[in-house]
């Protein structure tokens, strides 16, 4: 196990680990002296390599554009911060692409898990309308495993709400779909699949769905899986399994 963690060093150095593996490796790094030494050595040995780059002249207008964007981002940020301390800032087109996924993920989780609380933050406190606070309970949360050769990641969370159980799926690194294709979530009991949410990812490969689990009768779900379906009408899986987990 320890040996396996040590083998993640190269991928850690090159930002190739999933968030989960990155966290695991950083935990391992705290106590593994040989990994600490090797990481320091890699940093030291590669320190001069950027100077190997051949000199390339940047486009003439680049300086003006970059500095203008950088300075205006700071102003926007300060203005935003004055207005609210809740909303994170989108700084520019490039940043937006990078930070959008975690923001969306966090936003979605908040909206589902804490809808009652979020509403309280956003609505005027003077409102006379009584809000009924829903105390949601998380039943299970699990990470789905991608099928071989895929780098997609997904989390499944079952949330017990006042009016039933919802299954929340958040996935990223999803490949783009063609035509009418959709991602379809299934929950399985003894090999029999039940539909549990259909979604399409955004252009950043992030997709999410919240599905109300109001199936008749009691079920003991043993598996959760996500497939790509040719369209949104599949009653049983027709496409390949992209991600799955045993429950």
């Amino acid at each position, binding site marked *: 196990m320890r040996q396996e963690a040590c*083998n993640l060093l190269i991928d850690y150095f090159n*930002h190739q680990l999933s968030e989960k593996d990155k966290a695991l490796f950083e935990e391992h790094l705290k106590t593994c002296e040989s990994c600490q030494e090797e990481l320091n050595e890699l940093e030291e*040995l590669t320190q001069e390599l950027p100077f190997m780059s051949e000199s*390339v002249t940047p486009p003439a207008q*680049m300086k003006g554009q970059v500095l203008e964007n950088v300075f205006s981002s700071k102003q926007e940020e300060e203005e935003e911060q004055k207005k609210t301390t809740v909303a994170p800032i989108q700084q520019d087109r490039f940043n937006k692409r990078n930070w959008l996924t975690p923001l969306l993920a966090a936003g979605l989780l908040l909206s589902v898990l804490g809808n009652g609380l979020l509403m309280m933050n956003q609505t005027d406190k003077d409102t006379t309308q009584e809000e009924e606070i829903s105390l949601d309970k998380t039943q299970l949360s699990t990470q789905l495993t991608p099928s071989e050769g895929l780098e997609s990641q997904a989390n499944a969370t079952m949330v017990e709400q006042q009016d039933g159980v919802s299954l929340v799926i958040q996935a990223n690194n999803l490949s783009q779909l063609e035509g009418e294709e959709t991602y379809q979530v299934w929950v399985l009991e003894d090999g029999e699949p039940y539909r549990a949410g259909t979604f399409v990812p955004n252009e950043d490969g992030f997709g999410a769905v919240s599905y109300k689990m109001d199936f008749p009768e009691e079920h003991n779900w043993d598996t959760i899986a996500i497939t790509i379906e040719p369209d949104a009408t599949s009653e049983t899986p027709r496409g390949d399994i992209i991600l799955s987990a045993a429950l």
Partner: protein
Amino acid sequence: MQTGDQQALEELYDRYEKLVYSFAYRMVKHGAIAEEIVQEVFMKIWTKKGLYKRDKGKLSSWILTVTRNTSIDALRKKKETTYTLEERDALESDQVATEDIVEWKEEGEKLRSAVKTLNNEQQEIITLFYFNGLSQREIAEQCNIPLGTVKGRIRLALKHLKQSLNREKRGSNDETRSV
């Protein structure tokens, strides 16, 4: 205060623009993406000034690490979008090196000579690992070596390069002394 900061950043920009751009370009091989990386790097310097700690090394090293990390993220993004690795701009490297960063001028030539002392496999693995930022599995596949030996090969190649570089540096010092 703000104006003073802006001026300081502009000076830093003037000093490192070409190095950051050239390094980003070497990694992503795409002019427009390299421009976005330069912007991202200076955005990080501007908004997260506190992250650089003097005791952690030279400012240039820190800026270059930020550049590499940003470039790797861009490369991963590039893989996921429609860009292909063949897509390159018509950019060419400068015929005459006009770097005004002394460090670059001094290091660059010695590094390029030191790299020549490595065999082809070692040169390739350093490029795939450092400049292309590939995963261990991708490096194993491209070099046609077992996954478990990738780390050892990288370390060996880097150590070899470092030794060769040290010899280069000693050599040039000797030359300077003998003149």
